[in-house]
């Protein structure tokens, strides 16, 4: 993809994560497979932000967790800083964990309610044996809190004393403690009030500028990722259906699903607002347990053709660097 900067930090190739569904307590019997992520490929350049967008349940979190190797990869390759980590075990992942971290969706569930903020933010340092000098440790925790816009004297408090936005800042500080290069942000603002969302997104952008971070920024709609993303990948039922630079995607979405997602977003620019076609998708998202044959989106697609019902459209890279998986654009 010509839109990505020259140096690739993360390359994901044909990644699949399938969850077996088992029945029975003593003798387990597999009764099905949830194909949460079913063959996705993308790469992220150093310092870049890739937005990952799709409806709830389409496999965004699974993708993030698989990259972090928190889940077993069914097949495919994850290459981080040139190292193929897709088969690494717990022990071999340990040093890599310092370089790729995650910010979680739930501001309430992601912080241990029985730990003080200082212990939460300092935990990565302790886990990686960097907390030997007490003074340096405390100074680093204070620095991290300051970096995310919290006051150092909040360190001695417990998470429940903070608002949702502040809790996410605590989670960000924890993720930054080991100075990672890649931050996977799994819907970090979805649980926050709209007024707070912008503040936290701005914090992410400022941190990126200051620390040279690379983001995979996950969201369930296209409004949140607009300002932060360089490129955006749109996911549907375990697949990436379109990947393009932000401007390409918002000005000229190719995949009917992208168009539908975009139609759900209010756009401030009247020129674009007037020019876009309204396509609100209807119907339930099909189960990842039994995805539709052919194109997975054909059951809800307003432009579905006969071929869509039987032939799964491959991801096609176009001359302008973007890629789309749709029979309309093959």
């Amino acid at each position, binding site marked *: 993809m010509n839109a990505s900067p020259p140096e690739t930090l993360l390359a994901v190739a044909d990644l699949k994560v399938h969850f077996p569904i088992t029945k029975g*307590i*003593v003798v387990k019997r597999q009764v099905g497979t949830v194909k949460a992520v079913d063959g996705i490929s993308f790469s992220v350049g150093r310092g870049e932000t890739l937005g990952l967008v799709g409806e709830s349940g389409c496999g965004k979190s699974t993708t993030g*967790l698989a990259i*972090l190797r*928190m889940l077993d990869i069914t097949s495919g390759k994850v290459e981080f800083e040139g190292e193929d980590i897709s088969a690494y075990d717990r022990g071999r*992942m*340990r040093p890599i*964990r*310092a370089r790729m*971290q*995650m910010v*979680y*969706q*739930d501001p*309430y*569930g*992601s*912080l*241990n*309610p*029985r*730990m003080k903020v200082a212990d939460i933010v300092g*935990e*990565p340092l302790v*886990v*990686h044996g960097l907390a030997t000098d007490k003074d340096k440790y405390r100074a680093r925790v204070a*620095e991290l809190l*300051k*970096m*995310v*816009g*919290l*006051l150092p*004297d*909040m360190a001695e*408090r417990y998470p*429940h*004393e*903070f*608002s949702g*936005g*502040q809790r996410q*800042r605590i*989670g960000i500080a*924890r993720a930054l403690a*080991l100075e990672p290069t890649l931050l996977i942000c799994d819907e970090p603002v979805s649980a926050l009030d709209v007024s*707070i969302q912008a*503040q936290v997104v*701005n*914090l992410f952008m*400022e*941190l990126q500028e*200051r620390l040279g971070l690379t983001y995979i920024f996950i969201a369930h709609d296209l409004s949140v990722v607009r300002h932060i993303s360089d490129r955006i990948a749109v996911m549907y039922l375990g697949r990436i259906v379109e990947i393009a630079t932000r401007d390409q995607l918002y000005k000229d979405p190719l995949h009917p699903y992208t168009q539908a997602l975009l139609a759900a977003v209010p756009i401030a620019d009247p020129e674009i607002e007037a020019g876009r076609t309204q396509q609100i998708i209807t119907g339930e998202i099909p189960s990842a347990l039994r995805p539709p044959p052919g194109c997975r989106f054909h059951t809800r697609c307003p432009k579905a053709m006969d071929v869509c019902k039987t032939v799964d459209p491959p991801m096609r890279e176009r001359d302008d660097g973007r890629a789309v998986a749709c029979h309309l654009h093959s």
Partner: protein
Amino acid sequence: MAVREVAALDVGVDTSAVTPVRRQRRLGGLFVASVIWIALVGLGAIFAGLLPIPSPTEMDMLGKRALPSAEHWLGNDVLGRDVFSRLIYGGRISLTVGLLAPVIGVTVGGALGMLAGYFRGRFETIVTGGVDVLLAFPPLVFALAVTAYLGQSILNITLVIGILGIPAFTRVARAVTLSLSEREFVTAARALGATHSRILLRELLPNVALPLVAFFLLGVAVTIVVEGALSFLGLGVPPPAPSWGSMIGEGRESLDIAPWLAFLPAIFMFLTVLAFNVIGDTLRALTDPRPGAL
């Protein structure tokens, strides 16, 4: 809170709502009374030997079923032993067994439950299976078998009741651990590269401990009743050592002429059990003070 300058980075410092939202918790009079009662019984049990009371086993053949007097505050029992003294020393046994037996349950059951809830898989299947087997075993038969083979002693009674309590603690610990393990803070710890033991001890244990302590106190109450029942049946602490249960059993024979001989230990046991239940319930309510805490 004083407004501070944060010069490093203009990231829209978010200092709103930092005032703790601690809810004012009123500890009821019942709770205070319970704590006082337990403290009295506990102090009596610990310092029984130093108190100016008669020996609990010395029989005064002339003072059988004597009424309360300056010398014998609550009178004497069938064998002329000081009732007040026996109640104090009986508390020693009830509390010893009552506290030690659940300690066995909470440590063994707590550990098994946490490991099962965290690691899942085959280990969990084995643990839950073992718990079901232990629950299906008739407790009285188990108690009879152990005391018959190993003899009646405080240690054996404690062991029997302790082992019988393991399944309940295992279930509580496993259920709490299961729901906690799905929380993102556990995922976050794993993503940091934390070891299993660190996650179990630093992340999970502090969250499992409080519900377990509340359950422990209820376990103490149940154990005191069970110990009383075993002693009442003659399966408990061997005579002449006083236990509330055996005192009730002995008093049963003179219910018609001296009903207080059975009622006094019964009241002591009732109040102690009630007090532990009240404290346990209060703690359970306190450990769940906010939505989303556990």
